[in-house]
């Protein structure tokens, strides 16, 4: 069993229903306790194939497909599964599928448009004598990716926040769909460049399943080590950002320099501070250095504990973060939050739970926080960081030489023709989903990607309601979402 959730199905065994039956099936499965994972489309001769992936309570995946005539479309699933609102907006925007009953059919990322055309975006507006609008973006005040935020406020109070993205749309899926085996992993490493390892692993796992390749345990362990180091580094970066935003300087500098230690450890192992170029289908390119990992983990654990005691123990920090930007468990489930943002709302969802491979011997316990506010998200990150460090301390000594590896850049082997594979990896931000489909000649003809950001941006917007506009920076930082992961 792999460390990731991987599901493969031959296309001739994939159930294809007519749209109404397909929609009813999804409704039924959701009532049974399944969770929407992803919905995506692909243009074919007969129209557009729409696939939906659901995850059962036992973590297994189900995929079902329908074919629709884009002009005719179908009745939007968003109505029954709000979590799919982004996927259906994408389907409408990129493939022109008509969707009846979608409550918010606005552009998701402005495919093929220019900034001038984006200016016509139909923002939701409040009218009234006391209402005023605050526009932020696309360029923000710091060194950060672009996106537009539009607040409808009365005084300091935010009634509604709308997040308009698309400024980072480069067209990465169009490049991936070209199916060049050399470029798949380098490209996905930059989908959300701070979660390179998670995206790369999901793509590798999908390709390996298609090629029928199983990995040596040492390879899986090395990959998991890089993934957990990535989680540690980015949770530290997030806490440093939060500490900066609430003006807690010792936290900002300490978490910031600890992140340097974490990513320098990644660099010691693979040459890149972001783990770029380390994973490739069939292998991993690392120079194992168990002593360096152990030393870094010991330092991070010791100094991290002091920083946590200061940061989370500070009354100022508590006062600033508690009760701000809160969502309920029900809201989180309804909009389909994933990752630490979901766990901070009491939703125990983590693709590493019960995972095999590198996590089988050293399981990672899923923890949650109940309050769903900025404090809970900060606590989640602190706790996950500690858990990952404990995992790394345990795993580091086992980090031995990786057996003769597939040279990077080489195809992993012949891919199974006419297959669909889904792979889910738990990045520090939540699950990344990759779906690869091959044609009759075994070429990748569709490579669909979903970054957790697509799911979580709505959480930020909803959580801002009835909060003060001055709380926006800490709310935003507490989610720490990717703009280009959404925009693709």
């Amino acid at each position: 069993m792999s460390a990731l959730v991987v599901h493969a199905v031959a296309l001739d065994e994939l159930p294809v229903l007519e749209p109404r039956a397909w929609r009813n099936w999804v409704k039924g499965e959701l009532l049974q306790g399944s969770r929407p994972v992803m919905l995506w489309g692909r243009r074919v001769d007969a129209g557009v194939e729409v696939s939906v992936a659901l995850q059962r309570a036992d973590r297994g995946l189900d995929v079902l497909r329908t074919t629709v005539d884009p002009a005719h479309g179908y009745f939007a699933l968003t109505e029954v599964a709000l979590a799919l609102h982004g996927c259906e907006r994408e389907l409408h925007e990129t493939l022109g599928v008509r969707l009846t009953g979608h409550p918010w059919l606005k552009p998701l990322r402005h495919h093929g448009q220019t900034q001038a055309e984006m200016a016509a975006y139909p923002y939701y507006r409040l009218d009234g004598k006391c209402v005023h609008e605050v526009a932020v973006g696309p360029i923000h005040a710091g060194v950060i990716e672009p996106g537009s935020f539009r607040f409808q406020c009365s005084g300091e109070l935010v009634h509604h926040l709308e997040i308009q993205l698309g400024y980072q749309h480069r067209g990465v899926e169009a490049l991936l769909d070209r199916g060049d085996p050399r470029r798949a992993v380098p490209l996905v490493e930059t989908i959300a460049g701070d979660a390179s390892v998670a995206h790369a692993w999901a793509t590798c796992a999908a390709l390996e399943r298609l090629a029928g390749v199983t990995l040596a345990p040492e390879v899986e362990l090395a990959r998991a080590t890089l993934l957990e180091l990535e989680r540690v580094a980015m949770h530290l970066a997030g806490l440093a950002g939060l500490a900066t935003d609430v003006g807690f300087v010792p936290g900002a500098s300490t978490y910031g320099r600890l992140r340097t230690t974490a990513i320098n450890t990644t660099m010691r192992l693979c040459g890149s501070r972001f783990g770029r170029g380390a994973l490739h289908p069939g292998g991993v390119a690392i120079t194992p250095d168990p002593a360096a990992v152990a030393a870094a983990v010991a330092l991070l654990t010791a100094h991290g504990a002091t920083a946590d005691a200061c940061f989370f123990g500070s009354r100022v920090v508590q006062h600033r973060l508690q009760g701000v930007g809160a969502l309920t468990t029900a809201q989180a489930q309804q909009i389909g939050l994933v990752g630490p943002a979901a766990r901070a709302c009491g939703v125990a969802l983590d693709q590493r739970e019960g995972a095999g491979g590198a996590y089988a011997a050293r399981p990672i316990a899923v923890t949650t926080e109940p309050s769903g506010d900025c404090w809970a998200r900060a606590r989640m990150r602190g706790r996950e960081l500690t858990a990952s460090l404990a995992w790394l301390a345990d795993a580091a000594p086992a980090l031995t030489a990786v057996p003769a590896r597939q040279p990077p850049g080489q195809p992993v082997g012949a891919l199974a023709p006419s297959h669909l594979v889904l792979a889910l990896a738990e990045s520090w931000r939540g699950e990344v989903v990759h779906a690869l489909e091959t044609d009759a000649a075994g070429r990748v003809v569709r490579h669909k990607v979903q970054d957790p950001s697509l799911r979580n941006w709505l959480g930020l917007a909803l959580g801002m309601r009835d909060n003060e506009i001055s709380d926006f920076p800490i709310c935003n930082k507490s989610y720490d979402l990717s703009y280009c992961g959404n925009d693709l």
Partner: protein
Amino acid sequence: MWKLLQLRREQGRQAIPDLRAARPEGFRGLPVIATTPCADGCRACVDVCPTAAITAPPVRLDLGRCTLCGACAPACPTGKIAFTPEVAMAASRRDDLVVTEGPPRVPEVDIGAALRRRFGRSLKLRQVSAGGCNGCELELNALANVNFDIGRHGIEWVASPRHADALVVSGPITRTMADAVQLAWDAMAEPRFVIAVGACAISGGLYDGAPGVDRGFFDRQPPLIYVPGCPPHPLTIARALLAALARER
């Protein structure tokens, strides 16, 4: 209180004493290409490269396209390509980013005497990400952290382009950001210049020819400093900035 003091003690001095002398351990940096002849008709490195950064023979590697993924080194049957931990890779002339066969040559960063005189003691930077994946953005942010502490050299991030001397662009420039980048540039006072950070900004990198990309800005405003990498190491960026401002040449 005691915890804060303990935190301060653990912190100690974190700043890298000399940014010009620091060598990151294990970093896959400046490639060197040996002069050993290629096997007949071999194109292994060219074929394996995801960004079309290599041409051969003779083997030439364009750091402006290269993501330092490392795939080409093991692909070469004669082991011609090797990566060193050298961080100094930035250049002011685009052509200088091309690594050729032979001993390593550190490219030169030169923004001209007039700009050097003006900004030598204080350089304010406004960063715009236009399709950057947050790799370059994180490394640019890291420049200001307690380890790299670029502020001690008078180099600082500013929030408004009005206050900026140089525009730091990361990402290939998306169609949907093309106007914003131009607006930021137009808002800056003279003298000013452009710094392109990362393979994406220099050449488009992995996104060269992607459907959502519009690189017109760089045609109108060629950068004065190109900082290669994907993302560049903060030391690569720091070395480039310090070399650009250095008085003694």
